[in-house]
């Protein structure tokens, strides 16, 4: 029978009442789910409190634990390095508040009807790490489930992968949905490793799924992993059927995600720490640009210099461009000119236009070599025309203006040169 037909038959079930006083809800007795035993047998701990219950799984990792090809014991040193050398960098975990690595599993992607059913939190403990995975016992038990975390107790630094736009907004949304029964959520400091990975490996990795990074950079390959998009169905099934087998695979998935967060953090800091040639010129150029955008110019310059000194000409043109900019700012115009000329050899795209313009400016205003300035400007016009079909572009207008101005100056200098000749 079609859905519409069923609905038609239900017509008489709908009763309408005039608006009346809201019936006071009776406190219903707490009924335990029928699957407490099978879930316990699968390895979950059942926690019952005064107002509700939740499940939890705790996993301890000794300091010597290795995930992929990175040992967790390197975390302490990475944190210390950032605190000492780059105290304001976005990857720095401050000394002031405790930190945790955090990842959720949810019943959907967006909206107030999407539940978090798994909160995975990894913290540093004495001689190792402890992963605590809180599991929502049933959709009616959100308050106990959320309150079991300590996100309402104290401010923390929370390290996630894409947490800024997903996990934390979800957590906030769930908190809002239960606002009458929960203490206020604290405001936490966030470190989103997806953002930092994009800074580091832009142009180097095609996709920024955690799984790709694990395989390409962290030396970790998942086996028998549950695809994340199946998590909602698996949770619904576990609650309806009581069977936790697949749910435990989701816990495993979540555990791997969080361990990879730790090793990704370690690797990211190592890349900022050591000028070793283990990655490509693109990666190191990215790192240098990142420092530049963070306004730490000298560090940025060190990295660009490292790239220029350690990679071949075709890989270093962008670094040369930035070195040129840096030198220009330091008023070392001749060195700056050399760097831009070096950059021009291999550079392409929008950067090439930038280099032409910088060269034209230097030749025009500093070196006063107007024929060279004109040559750079005209080559730029030609190159821009190939790149950009829009005949009305603002850049085109600016370039034409520059061309006219240089020609004018050129003529004046020629005239005065001739004038001087005559005098002699």
């Amino acid at each position: 029978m079609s859905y519409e037909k069923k609905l038609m038959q239900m017509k008489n079930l709908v009763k309408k009442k005039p608006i009346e006083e809201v019936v006071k809800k009776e406190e219903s007795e707490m009924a335990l789910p029928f699957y407490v035993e099978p879930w316990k047998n699968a390895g979950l701990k059942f926690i019952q409190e005064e107002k509700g219950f939740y499940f939890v799984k705790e996993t301890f990792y000794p300091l010597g634990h290795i995930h992929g090809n990175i040992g967790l014991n390197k975390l302490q040193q990475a944190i210390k390095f950032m605190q000492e050398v780059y105290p304001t960098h976005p990857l720095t975990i401050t000394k002031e508040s405790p930190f945790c690595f955090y990842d959720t599993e949810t019943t959907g992607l967006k909206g107030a009807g999407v539940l978090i059913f798994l909160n995975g939190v990894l913290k540093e403990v004495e001689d190792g790490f402890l992963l605590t995975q809180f599991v929502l016992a049933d959709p009616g038990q959100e308050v106990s489930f959320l309150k079991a975390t300590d996100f309402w107790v104290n401010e923390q630094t929370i390290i996630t992968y894409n947490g800024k736009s997903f996990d934390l907004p979800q957590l906030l949304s769930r908190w809002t949905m239960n606002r009458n029964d929960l203490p206020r959520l604290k405001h936490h400091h966030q470190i989103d490793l997806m953002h930092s990975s994009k800074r580091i490996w832009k142009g180097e990795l095609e996709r920024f799924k955690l799984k790709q990074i694990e395989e390409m950079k962290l030396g970790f390959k998942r086996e028998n992993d549950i695809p994340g998009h199946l998590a909602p169905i698996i949770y619904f099934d576990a609650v309806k059927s009581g069977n936790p087998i697949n749910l435990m695979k989701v816990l495993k998935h979540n555990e791997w995600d969080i361990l990879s967060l730790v090793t990704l953090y370690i690797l990211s800091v190592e890349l900022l720490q050591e000028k070793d040639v283990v990655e490509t010129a693109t990666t190191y150029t990215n790192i240098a640009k990142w420092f530049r955008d963070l306004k730490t110019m000298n560090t940025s310059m060190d990295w660009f210099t490292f790239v220029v000194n350690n990679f071949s000409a075709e890989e270093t043109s962008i670094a040369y461009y930035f070195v040129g900019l840096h030198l220009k700012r330091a008023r070392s115009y001749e060195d700056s000119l050399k760097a831009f000329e070096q950059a021009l050899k291999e550079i392409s795209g929008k950067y090439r236009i930038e280099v032409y313009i910088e060269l034209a400016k230097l030749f025009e205003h500093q070196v006063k070599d107007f024929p060279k300035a004109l040559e750079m400007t005209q080559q730029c016009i030609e190159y821009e025309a190939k790149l950009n079909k829009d005949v009305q572009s603002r850049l085109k207008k600016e370039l034409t203006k520059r061309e006219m101005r240089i020609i004018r100056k050129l003529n004046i200098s020629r005239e005065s040169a001739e004038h001087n000749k005559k005098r002699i």
Partner: protein
Amino acid sequence: MNMLEKQSIHQLLDAWKVDENRFPQIEHIHTTEEKEAIYAPFPETMHSSIQKALKSRGVNQLYIHQRLAFDSASSGKSYTTITPTASGKSLCYHLPVLQSIMEDPTSRAIYLFPTKALAQDQKSDLNNLIEATGEEILSYTYDGDTAPGIRQKIRKSGHIVLTNPDMLHSGILPHHTKWVTLFENLKYIVIDEIHTYKGVFGSHVAHVIRRLKRICAYYGSNPQFICTSATIKNPKELAENLTNTPHELINQNGAPAGRKHFIFYNPPIVHPVFNVRRSAVLEVRDLAQELYVNGIQTIVFAKSRVRVEMLVTYLQSLVSKKINDQTIRGYRGGYLPSERRTIEKGLREGVIRTVVSTNALELGVDIGQLQACIMTGYPGNIASAWQQAGRAGRRQDEALIIYVAGSTALDQYVVKHPEYFLGQSPEEVRIHPDNMIILMDHLKCASFELPFSPADMYAEFSIQELLAFLESEGVLLKTSEKWHWMSDSFPASNISLRSASQENVIIIDQSIPTKTRVIGEMDQYSAMTLLHEEAIYLHQGTQFQVEILDWEEKKAFVREVDVDYFTDANIAIELKVLSEDRAKEADIGILRFGDIIVLAQPTIFKKIKFDTHDNIGSGQIHLPPIELHTSSTWFSFDKPDGWKDTLLSDAMTGVSYALHAFIPLFIHCDAKDIHVVPQVKSIHGEKPTFYMYDSYPGGIGLSERMFDLWNELVPKVTVQVESCSCMHGCPACIGAQDAELNLKEEVIKLLHLLQVDRHVV
């Protein structure tokens, strides 16, 4: 306004009164005199910044309706105002809303407009007013066009959020946790133009509002409603039904109005025997030409997109010699938004002198006030007719409104009974939130937004059984305290408010193979008859032929052509009865009400020549049927003695035609909202039967009204058919017929048979 133009309406009228071609066609002239404004002083409590802003615009007192609105708002009531276009109605809500924000800067308001375009229109108006107050009040539109970058700012700090029901439904309510500040502090919900929320769309919106109220209650706010409406019979009832909240009605209108001339114009009879009149479209063309030549800025309303395009084609031939002339334009749904904005601007600035539009321009789209309005046929209901007429009439100027009747029964009735239109008895606007399909759709959305508890009602509905049904469908899960959403789907994205969850057909122009482009879109039901293969589709006066209709992908590929005909398609209907809910006996038959399934399938199309309107060819249409579950009232009767099946079939077709033509007059709905289908041998019960059913899935209460009104309807229809002056049947009564059949007599006989006195059992 300069004197020359002002006089020309006058001169034109005088000239028509002595013109031997024009004058006989004018059935009636009605003039409404100038109306003085009724003012009231500013309320003492009104914030000084608002007073300052109004004074800076030269406004030193309010119209009476604006004052009444302000007072109702101050006393904490929800209210509905009815005022015509250009009466300063927006101040009826702006003033109290701004007042509340100035008294308490944490206050918030939501403005709902029926379309995105109207919201964007109103925003500039509102912002001008806010600027004049000099206060820090932030108002934003929030819709599909809103840049992601400023969405968060709007959620957190927008005082007034201007949006539309669709966005509220799928973009705001399901994400209410991101709008905590708004929902905690919501003081006013403004719903503009509520008369547009009718039928299925209105029923959907009624549920969106119920969901909104539910979310507000969760966050502890209890906002007042302010609604505005065009003149309809039941504004208070509609507002209360829409918002599930008691409303006060403000129906005084203090705005002044200029002198208006209404002309009821009937095209000349060209075939006296068949009572066939000259095509209204051609007549409108001539009238519009005359107004254009005289420099009178005119809006022409036509009922269908096809007619709009035909008229634009005709009229543009006036200026075809001028290069790139933009003074005559078409306007309708299916044009791209940028194209519509350009046309609206052209009208306001007076560059466009004549615009031909569907009812798309009935709404509050700001095009300024024009001088004349021509209606091509009766738009189907009085509220629409007044909205259309309201487009003409500048405050200190005379206006001309010409109603040109078509040959349909309804059109002819109106032209012969001007009091039906002028008599101020506009129709009711009905919504039907009880529709099961719509109710269930929104129950899902509401469950997603906030779980129901086992004691909860949903607005006025007891819904516990329905929630249990949703659990059995696997959508919800009941725990000890709540019904929880248990699906990874996002329900709002599967539920469209505008049509019964059908995607539109995209129209792609492939005249130049390398440069295919999208030129418009159309709903599926219309597409069956307007975009079938070989159909001639008109867009801004250009003819296109449909080459391929890809029904699976919902794409129509068209190519520009130049032909001298247009196409017109037929639809075949099949019916099945699902359930009978009510029945009453009659001497000769039984009237029943219940649920049915309708299968609609287009069959053939005809090619009809321009100007002469001759039929010059036809073809088959191959498309799958569209299925509709709806409610129906049907009347079955024993076959009268001595009637052959073929004769009875023809007579029943004639009766159906007459019934369908007059039902909208009696239950005040659009002709397209209801269908009448005769069956000599009904599939259900084998007796001759008339089925009357709602055009929308689940039904919206129209056919149920027919169940109650049947006894009154048949005698009235009989009188209309008998009094029609044609000899053998004409479009104004039972449809045009061949003379030899003498069918009109048989139809009248059958109508008399059907109206034997009945008693309710």
